[in-house]
């Protein structure tokens, strides 16, 4: 009976999932010893940043069913919050990185208020409008934000006694990996908790969920706020790593790339978005020689995968697991 009370029937056990995650991250942690050139490490660092942003978007879009098209604005807020805090306020970069996550979280809570009573396309309109509003605010405050020129020479992160500029991006690799690890653990703990189940319940059937005591307002605020913290931290890390900030992060181009990662990976899995971030970032680099054909080939590849596996890359994993279970059962 005790085992029954702990287990969640039909789901991978905590133990097995933790073992898989630790193994996967341990393998990633070894890659700088195999991939020694700084450009390849840079590609992996960008994949980690995209993976954080995409997997957190999966929380609100996939699990929550909230068409939050302002997610990239939360990333942009992290970028600028870090830039402003370190450059203008002289706040310690590590503290500024954590605070940037908090600023993005507050912004997410603010944007939740007008979308509480909205559904579908109206949420897209309001959240898209929110992203544009933030961008215009940044542009209008050019004395502080640099306007269309952006912010340059943003303070980078530091490690005592270690030169982060001349280490072939070794330290940055591990910081990005640590952020991705923390974000992934946080997201998986959340989606596997009863809070996560309530978020899915509201997405699946709002009225039924409310009749079971789930507060639409509270859970939607939790969903958006939870998806914002590590997105903001990733934005801050991006600013520290690139040492500049530009309003391009609010553009449709980046939003489209990250959305492709969420959809190609398969929504409501977290891991799918992370896997697709790696696939698309690395694929884009492999295809670099194809010039203008690169986005066309990438788009065709996404279409083919989505046609064959409508649940995305996670669907491939799910169908492989199902066929393995069928074979095992005989």
């Amino acid at each position, binding site marked *: 009976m005790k085992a*029954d009370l702990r287990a969640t029937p*039909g789901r991978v056990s905590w133990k097995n999932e933790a073992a898989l995650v630790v193994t996967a991250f341990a393998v990633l942690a070894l890659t700088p010893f195999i991939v020694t050139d700084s450009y390849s490490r840079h590609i992996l660092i960008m994949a980690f940043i995209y993976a954080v942003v995409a997997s957190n978007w999966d929380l609100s879009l996939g699990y929550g069913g909230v068409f939050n098209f302002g997610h990239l604005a939360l990333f942009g807020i992290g970028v600028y919050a870090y830039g402003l805090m370190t450059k203008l306020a002289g706040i310690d970069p590590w503290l500024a990185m954590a605070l940037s996550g908090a600023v993005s979280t507050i912004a997410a809570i603010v944007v939740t208020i007008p979308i509480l009573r909205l559904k579908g396309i109206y949420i897209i309109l309001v959240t898209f409008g929110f992203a544009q509003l933030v961008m215009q605010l940044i542009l209008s405050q050019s004395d502080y934000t640099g306007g269309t020129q952006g912010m340059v020479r943003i303070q980078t992160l530091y490690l005592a006694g270690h030169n982060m500029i001349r280490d072939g991006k070794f330290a940055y690799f591990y910081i990005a990996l640590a952020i991705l690890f923390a974000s992934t653990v946080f997201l998986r703990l959340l989606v596997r908790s009863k809070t996560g189940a309530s978020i899915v319940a509201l997405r699946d059937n709002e009225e*039924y969920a*409310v009749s079971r005591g789930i507060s639409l307002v509270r859970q939607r605020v939790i969903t958006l706020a939870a998806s914002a913290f590590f997105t903001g931290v990733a934005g801050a890390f991006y600013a520290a790593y690139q040492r500049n900030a530009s309003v391009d992060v609010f553009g449709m181009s980046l939003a489209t790339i990250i959305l492709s990662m969420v959809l190609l990976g398969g929504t409501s899995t977290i891991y799918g978005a992370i896997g697709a971030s790696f696939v698309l970032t690395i694929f884009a680099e492999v295809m670099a020689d194809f010039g203008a054909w690169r986005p066309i080939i990438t788009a065709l590849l996404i279409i083919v995968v989505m046609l064959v596996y409508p649940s995305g890359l996670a669907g491939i994993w799910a169908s492989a697991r199902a066929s393995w279970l069928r074979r095992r059962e005989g």
Partner: protein
Amino acid sequence: MPLLEVESVSKAFGSLKALDKVSFKVEPGEIFGIAGPNGSGKSTLFNVITGIPFGPDSGRIVFDGVEIQRKAGHKIAWLGLARTFQRETSFDKLTVFENVLVSGAYGKPNRSPEEERAGALEALDIVGLPRSRHGRLAEELSVFDRKCLMLATAVAMQPKMLLLDEPASGLTRPEIETSIGLIRRIADLGVTIVLIEHVLTFLMSLSQHLLVLNQGEVLTIGNPKDVIADARVIEAYLGTRKAAV
């Protein structure tokens, strides 16, 4: 003291009066039936009592001594008022166990995780959903199993009162028989039941009191045998005697 007191409750959609000054009382521990032809306002009545998705335009609803006509739906649920819906409803992408666990956890707050899990397993046992189905996604279940699951999610809330909206709709005769037994079992747990049903035999076999709604108004209320013998009820269901022949 009645567990539920509905006083002169009205609800209109534009010029259509869905409920017009409806009043009745439900005593603790009873099974209270609500009948009426299509469009008589039965489901609307459940909607305004539970605040899902809307409350009444006017009138007063008191549940367990608390006025609830202006309360949010989830807060009404916390007071111990659970409901089911006419169509089989579930959280499709959650497993059977998760459906019940999340309902119990939020519908009856302030319990330990162990109590929530034990409550979920007990609710599933009460409705007869075997352990072999606990790990399946709700969307994979049959209509009858989904109806049972909806009941289990309500039972997991440990409600004082359960509003059942046409639990027999879409079921076969043997499934209806099983449902009757299931509702009796839930009532035996001390849960007061208010039951909307189209199938009069279903209502007659369960209810201690029967209310008939017609065009948003209370047509009659009382002992089920007397109620169905009432000429106004026969007319509302079958039309005039001449038309019925």
